[in-house]
């Protein structure tokens, strides 16, 4: 009889054997997911086909890219290693990555095309157009039924309510995508818009595959209008997105990317308005200070005191002058009067001495015979006295 070994020894032996096997350590297995369960960050399921089933485990579920594929009934290809659990002798696949089954051909075609278009320069960052910071008119291409439309409109009206949005509904899944999106892009590109957003929500590689179309990618790279593309959440970015001027991971992110937040714009503007006021206030204050300084400086040279003194002196002079003038005038007046009397007296006497007489009637000097009548009383003044006389006759000379 053969020497018996313990179960644990067998289990350990099998585990080592499997571990050393290169084929079993790096294996890809295609099958359908069933009995899916999540526990403590790990994922457990069975991979089965028509006739067989093998258990599989994903440690650190978060590290798996294609977590959306983890659905009951998903046909997947898992890559990983075979492991024997020593305590139970249980065989399972430790999964490192998984992808959708049947994707292989499509994926290879995608990679080839990506490579080709990249070499042609379709994805060159130098070719990408800059998005306007303050767009006014934008085009939007998405499905009229999807959540993407709602998300984008919601965010745009909240963040930047100044847009004219030209919404061109288009299918974003299925065989007509290329034709419909091409038509939409061609139409919108002629409208002189500030930018175009092409978006849809997340989906599988197959869902989004139309956005890897060569025709569509070439069209996108030739658009006159800047294009923002947000197509699904795929890790492998679609070729349309690579050719677009900007890419966003979700419709919401695309909406945020193209729209400045008007609340922030308002607060920034108000800040600038305040800065403007502050600067001007500073200038006015500085000028006022300069003015005060000069006013102080100038007060030392203020001539008003001297002017007032001069004014006083001048008015004193004026008074003295007018006093002097008054004196002068009254002196001159009395002199003049004296002279007058003297002159009068001198003339009068001179005439009398020369033999002339002065005839007066009632105190008035007479020089015409016609002013006298016969028997009028007269006074005749002579050099040494006067005569009382009476008219006894008169002869008037003819003219």
């Amino acid at each position: 009889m053969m020497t018996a070994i313990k179960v644990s020894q067998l289990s350990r032996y099998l585990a080592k054997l499997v571990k050393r096997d290169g084929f079993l350590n790096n294996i890809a297995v295609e099958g359908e997911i069933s009995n899916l369960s999540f526990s403590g960050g790990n994922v457990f399921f069975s991979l089965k086909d028509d006739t067989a089933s093998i258990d599989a485990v994903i440690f650190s579920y978060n590290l798996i890219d294609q977590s959306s594929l983890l659905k009951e009934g998903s046909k997947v290809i898992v890559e990983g290693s075979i492991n024997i659990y020593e305590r139970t002798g249980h065989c399972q696949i430790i999964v490192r990555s998984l992808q959708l089954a049947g994707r292989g051909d499509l994926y290879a075609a995608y990679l080839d095309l990506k490579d080709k278009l990249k070499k042609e320069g379709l994805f060159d960052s130098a070719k990408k157009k800059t998005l306007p910071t303050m767009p006014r008119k934008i085009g939007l291409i998405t499905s009229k039924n999807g959540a993407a439309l709602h998300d984008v409109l919601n965010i745009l009206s909240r963040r930047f309510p100044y847009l004219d949005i030209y919404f061109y509904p288009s299918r974003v899944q299925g065989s007509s995508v290329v034709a419909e999106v091409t038509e939409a892009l061609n139409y919108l590109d002629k409208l002189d818009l500030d930018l175009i957003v092409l978006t849809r929500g997340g989906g599988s590689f197959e869902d989004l595959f139309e956005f890897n179309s060569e025709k569509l990618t070439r069209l996108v790279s030739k658009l006159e209008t800047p294009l923002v593309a947000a197509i699904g959440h795929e890790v492998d970015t679609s070729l349309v997105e690579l050719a677009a001027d900007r890419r966003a991971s979700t419709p919401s992110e695309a909406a945020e990317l193209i729209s400045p937040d008007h609340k922030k714009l308002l607060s920034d503007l108000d800040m600038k308005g305040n800065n403007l006021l502050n600067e001007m206030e500073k200038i006015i204050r500085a000028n006022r200070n300069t003015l005060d300084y000069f006013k102080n400086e100038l007060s030392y040279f203020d001539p008003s005191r001297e002017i007032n003194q001069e004014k006083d002196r001048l008015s004193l002079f004026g008074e003295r002058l007018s006093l002097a003038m008054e004196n002068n005038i009254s002196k001159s007046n009395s002199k003049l009067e004296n002279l007058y009397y003297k002159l009068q007296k001198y003339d009068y006497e001179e005439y009398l001495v020369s033999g002339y007489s002065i005839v007066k009637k009632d105190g008035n000097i007479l020089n015409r015979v016609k002013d006298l009548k016969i028997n009028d009383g007269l006074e005749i003044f002579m050099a040494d006295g006067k005569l009382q006389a009476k008219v006894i006759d008169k002869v008037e000379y003819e003219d």
Partner: protein
Amino acid sequence: MKIDLKDYEKYLARLDEIIVKLNSADISLDESISLYKEGIEIYKALSKLLNDKEHSLKVFKDGEFVELENQDE
């Protein structure tokens, strides 16, 4: 003064330029007053632009864009 939304950035930059100039030491009072007037005018026009919300949604239907919603707030 009326500013188009497209020129917002341009006028905002001019506003910045005015603030910097006002802050510089070698500026006459006359010059600063005319800059200030210009700055206030720009500020008012930009502020009006931001406060006058105006957006519309047009949808492509049967070969042309049709107005869906027009809100002037």
